[in-house]
């Protein structure tokens, strides 16, 4: 049974460009069904703004089913809003009640400059992945299934890390603006598997040091894990930290001698 929410006040961050000064702008949503997703609510607001001849609110979105990592938004002080383990696109208005004031801000980090309104440029993440988030090997044709034996717990752990969609909620939620959860996930999904071993230590070294050029440092608050739409564990950060330490002392000429 759907119900209708009445009298919502939105305080939306408006900013015309990366260097301009932004401000909160208030809008009222008189009526909205609780079955609407948060982004659909913003669509409805934008339809109205356009029909009134005003500028629509710019925000990032794409797949709207929680798998692409494009949507963002700091909603009432929480990255991706109050629902655990979901992206903003999977947040529905039923999480709010009539008369609520909803404050919407963009991700804030020096590495994520605001493009316009609620849209930020997350290409610093691409710089990190470019520095080691891949396997440099000619893979040839599709190999036979189970040609390389991988224990089930290892495959599961790697998959847990590989779930990262690169949305940036970890950076947005971190009080220090650190990208350790993202970087750790992108390192771990390869470093846990046999195929990732050849470049394991150069990968962690290059990716951690590229991360350092853009982001803050981890002080183990755990806010990233709580905000992550894929619920990636901060255990991945510990794994990255351990591998980075090993990378600094490892004799790379004798990698095979564990």
């Amino acid at each position, binding site marked *: 049974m759907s119900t209708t929410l009445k009298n919502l006040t939105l305080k939306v961050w408006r900013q015309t460009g990366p260097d301009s000064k932004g401000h909160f702008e208030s809008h009222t949503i008189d009526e909205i069904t609780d079955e609407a997703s948060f982004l659909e609510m913003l669509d409805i607001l934008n339809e109205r703004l356009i029909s009134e001849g005003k500028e629509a609110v710019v925000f990032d979105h794409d797949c709207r089913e929680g798998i692409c990592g494009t949507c963002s938004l700091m909603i*009432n002080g929480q990255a991706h809003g109050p629902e655990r383990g979901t992206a903003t696109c999977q947040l529905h208005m039923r999480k709010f009640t009539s008369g609520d004031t909803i404050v919407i801000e963009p991700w804030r980090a020096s590495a994520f400059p605001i493009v316009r309104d609620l849209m930020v440029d997350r290409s610093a993440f691409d710089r990190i992945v470019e520095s080691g988030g891949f396997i440099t090997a*000619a893979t040839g044709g599709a190999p036979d299934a189970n040609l390389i034996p991988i224990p089930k717990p290892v495959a599961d752990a790697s998959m847990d890390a590989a779930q990262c969609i690169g949305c940036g909620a970890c950076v947005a939620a971190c*009080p220090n*603006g650190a990208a350790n959860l993202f970087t750790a996930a992108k390192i771990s999904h390869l470093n846990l598997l046999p195929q990732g071993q050849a470049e394991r230590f150069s990968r962690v070294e290059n990716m951690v040091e590229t991360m350092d050029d853009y982001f803050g440092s981890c002080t183990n608050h755990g806010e990233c894990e709580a905000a992550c739409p894929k619920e990636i564990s901060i255990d991945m950060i510990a794994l990255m930290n351990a591998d980075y330490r090993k990378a600094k002392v490892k004799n790379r000429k004798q990698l095979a001698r564990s």
Partner: protein
Amino acid sequence: MAMSQTLQRGPVSGTATSRTTSRRPFLLDLYATAVGKKYVMAVTGIIGILFIIGHMVGNLKAYIGLVEEADGTMAYDLDVYAHFLRELLVPIVPHGYALWGLRLGLIAALVLHLHAAWSLTVLNRKARPVRYQSSRDYQVASFASRSMRMTGILVVLFIAWHLADLTWGWVNPGYEYGEVYRNLDASLSRLPVAILYIVANIALGTHLFHGIWSLFQSMGWNNPRFNRWRRGLATGIATIVVVGNVSFPIMTLAGVISHPSV
């Protein structure tokens, strides 16, 4: 001819870049990154924790009171222990050298801990120059984790007071070198000083509550077999240290720790 052709191709990713900056010497190279500085925070933190536990346990000798020396004279066990610390490792090293070695190690650890904390704070401020304009709704960050800087500064200021009080005697009336038990009673009998010691130790305990858990993550010591013990260990050590240390001002005010000349 197709058969004689070799496969020629560049990197899989057209944008793949490897870093070409020249590397600093081993340990400096590690310390240059934020992850490396967190190792330093963790290792120097472990040194500090071991010292704090040892310091608290050593002070418990105040409760033993008077003991009979080998020559039949009576002495406060705390004073005997303090003299012993200067005799540590004698005759391998001369009188007082081992204690100074430990002190230099502690000073080095403290300086590194502070420098790493300072430079990581600067890095974090740069990572978010424009703060959130609405209030944040933190989900799991604890008071302890959010106040590490404040509790750390409080502890450093307290260390300065503590040295001036019981090591140098500058702020301790009638300070007598070597009369540790007397000086302890003279200092902690003053109510404002006792309150200062209690507050500072609660700040220290709060710092340890997050720090001890956090160092496992920073060092990458994470294993499902022992992960659930990490929080318990942090809470346990923080509690033991606070209870032990706070007992001294309270027991002095209560008259349990009492020197006849004070």
